[in-house]
């Protein structure tokens, strides 16, 4: 196991000693003893998250656009230079293998980033294309600067006017005198940027950001705070909301893009891409599953605790165990399962992301989710909600 390029800094900052393994890297779960302080930094000021373990690939060559259009469900050929697209990729049967972003650096160069290694998958399609795939995971450090003040911090540290940078745009910026790539993307569902930094400059950029950030209450944030944010924003996570079709032991564990809320990324009517035929078929019929949000009824929860003479005591940490969801209170008819959830300190709601039978996934539908209170199993009403619990205008708006 190894640390990311920021390991030496993190080691000093991580008071809680709470670490996690992410793709073979040590990653901080929470720096502070109370992770929700980091959450609040992300939501009300700004947070700096080390996302270097993301796998990063540069795809270069004349046919790189055609190649990526062939692999991705989204038509990458149409992506403008300096733009980023979020997409997923599937196997022949239209089942999702991975999801991530594709940044068009120039006409013939793309940066693909994703949570799990996919070098060999990208290379599988090279035949007949003039393109090459370079794994730059270890060469590029990555930071996510997220939160309402992210823009101000970035402006102050780079001295560049990036206020006009649109959502999902990318450009080259100088930070602390180092050229880095910045994209206006993120995993918190808020205003934010992701910074792609040559490994050698990583610590300088980190230091510059934290110094400049002092005036804006910037905090380094760990994965737990990030997880809370992404659940509020309704963003799915591989291995949690879905499993790669390449690594699923049984058919039932595979999902199509339509079933995990990525239907909007699929562009069907165009040149052939992997899984096209299967997806065309699925688009015409109805997928059996849907991704949805669940708003777990608070007063019922409270009442359950009260029955035991207890105040409601939910953990403030996000969870990601599969919990069955039923149509009925008697827990006879299961209609899906929640995959991850959290107490949302901002919304004051207990929320979850769930995979539900399509007919039950209509917002407003009242379902029952299993809940254990004081060693007893109960069911609590959970109302189907769009997965986007938190979606501020500043996420996409441009500063003038």
């Amino acid at each position, binding site marked *: 196991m190894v640390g990311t390029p920021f390991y030496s800094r993190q080691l000093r900052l991580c008071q809680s000693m709470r670490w996690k393994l992410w793709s073979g890297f040590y990653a901080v779960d929470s720096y502070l003893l109370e992770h929700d302080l980091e959450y609040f930094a992300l939501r009300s000021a700004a947070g700096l998250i080390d996302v270097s373990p993301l796998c990063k690939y540069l795809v270069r060559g004349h046919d790189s656009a055609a190649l990526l259009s*062939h692999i991705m469900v989204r038509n990458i050929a149409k992506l403008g230079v300096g733009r980023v697209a979020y997409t997923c990729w599937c*196997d*022949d049967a239209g089942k999702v293998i991975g999801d991530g972003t594709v940044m068009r650096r120039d006409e013939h160069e793309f940066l693909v980033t994703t949570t799990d290694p996919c070098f060999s998958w990208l290379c*599988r*399609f090279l*035949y*007949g294309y003039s393109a090459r795939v370079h794994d730059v995971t270890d060469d590029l450090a990555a930071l996510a600067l997220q939160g309402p003040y992210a823009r101000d911090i970035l402006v102050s540290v780079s001295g560049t006017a990036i206020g006009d940078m649109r959502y999902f745009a990318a450009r080259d910026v100088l930070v602390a005198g180092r050229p880095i790539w910045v994209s206006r993307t993120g995993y918190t569902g808020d205003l934010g940027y992701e910074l792609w930094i040559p490994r050698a400059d990583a610590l300088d950029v980190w230091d510059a950001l934290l110094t400049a950030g002092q005036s804006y209450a910037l905090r380094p944030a760990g994965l737990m705070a990030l997880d809370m944010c992404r659940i509020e924003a309704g963003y799915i996570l591989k291995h949690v909301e879905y499993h790669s079709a390449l690594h699923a032991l049984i058919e039932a564990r595979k999902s199509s893009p339509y079933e995990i809320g990525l239907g909007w990324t699929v562009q069907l009517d165009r*040149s*052939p*891409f*992997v899984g096209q*035929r299967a997806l065309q078929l699925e688009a015409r019929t109805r997928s059996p599953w849907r991704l949805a949000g669940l708003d777990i009824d608070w007063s019922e929860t409270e009442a359950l605790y009260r029955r035991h003479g207890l105040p409601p005591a939910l953990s403030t940490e996000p969870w990601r165990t599969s919990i069955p969801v039923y149509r009925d209170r008697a827990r006879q008819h299961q209609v899906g399962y929640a995959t991850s959830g959290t107490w949302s300190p901002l919304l004051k709601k207990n929320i979850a992301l769930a995979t539900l039978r399509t007919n039950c996934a209509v917002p407003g539908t009242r379902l029952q989710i299993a809940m254990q209170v004081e060693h007893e199993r109960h069911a609590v009403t959970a109302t189907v909600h769009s997965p986007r619990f938190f979606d501020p205008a500043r996420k996409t708006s441009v500063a003038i």
Partner: protein
Amino acid sequence: MSSPWDTIVIGGGLSGLSAAVTLARADQRTLLLEQRAATGGLAAPGRFDTGAVAPPVRQDNGMLPLGLLRHLRLAKHGLTAKHAVPALHVLLQEGGCITVRSNASQTEASIARHHAADAKNYRRYAGLAQKVAPALARLLQHPGPANGIRALPLILKGLRWWKMPAMHELLRLAPMSAQDFLDQWFVTDSLKAALAIPAFQAAWGGPFYPFGALHILIQEALSSHFVTGGMAAVATSLERAAVHHGVTIQTGNRAERILLASDGTVRGVQLADGATIAAPSVIAACSPRVVYQQLIEHRHLDQGFLWQARHLKSRGTTAHLALLLNSVPEALAPRARCAPGIEALEQSFDKMKQGEIPEAFALEIEVHADPPALSVLAHFVPHTVQGGWTSEARRELAHRILAPLKPHLPGPVLSSRLLTPEDLELDYQLPGGHLYHVERSPDQMLAQPLHGWKPPAKGLYLASSGTTHGGGSVCTSGLVAARALLRAKKQSRLEMRRTRRF
């Protein structure tokens, strides 16, 4: 899109020709594209430097399925079948020769001159081959759409006649190595080595390698229909039949791509010069590796399918040497085999694995009369030799192949023509240089849903030695593919009529 052609056949080898004839006889407008200057593929005669006709690479192994070919009426186009299996001389390492004839007692007598026990056992050995022949014939020459696990019912049917012990017997024998298999009957080393040759032809492996027995059995069981004039005669008569039935043959014309529409159905073929020819169906009678790795655009293929296609094995280990002579060498005519011995061959195989030219080879010799010439297939020649096939290396190879034959030749060699596996690959578009296009290893014979009969794109059919029906059994795959195509056409016509009615 209207097109002057119903079907384009890519590749004018025996499979391609038989497919084209079958189609044309069913009134299909058929175009045949052949990249070489003449049709016939590996069965087409070559030329010596002197200009004389050289025997083709493909030798007559007696496995032409005459029953199947009957409806092509090749007799009308000049093909005559011999009903007796021609004699086979086995040149012994220690001098002398055993002649194997269809008459077992003659063979016995011939072996008895060298080894009494071997002679006695020969009868049992030949009897076994006779016993398994019908089942193997059903299995390998059956024209039905069978491959992979779907062949299972067929196999069971094929085995129906057998009492249980016999079935166990085949199951036990088939996975054996050539060595273990032949050791059961024979002692004479070079006789064993000679009998083992079909195993080397079929799949990558020496005499110690498992499943050699299967190929020896197949050869012994199915080798019964020889033709006058050898494989070249088959090619000529097939071409005549094709022309007669109206097939348009374009030689020297190479298909570069099979064009597919976005829904994966065949649109036509693109030629080397960029021109395209439209047609609703294509029979690809060339190496499956060429089809999957060059002719079809990968974006049209499933990943799982491609994964399989990419890993087709076709490691060729056979070279062909044609020799022009003064007169016919009677000692070798009509055909002969010569191999140093089981262990010596395995050593040759080891040498070959390391990219060296072995000392001795397993040779299959066919004698041609007009002009007097020898066709020699030599096994365990590396595809690429260390340092490449320089002219010295080639000379060395020819020299070593020739050495054991020298004493049997009536006079000097007037001219020779050598094709290494690498030459075969380049000349005949056979990736890997395997004469059967892909190895007939057990995993590729039975366990091959891929290059069998089911096409990966609508309107595309595969017909070549590389398919389930290919290999030793010449032409079958062409017939199978053509029939499948015709059946599909008929079905879609019926369907169309049905929909029109409603």
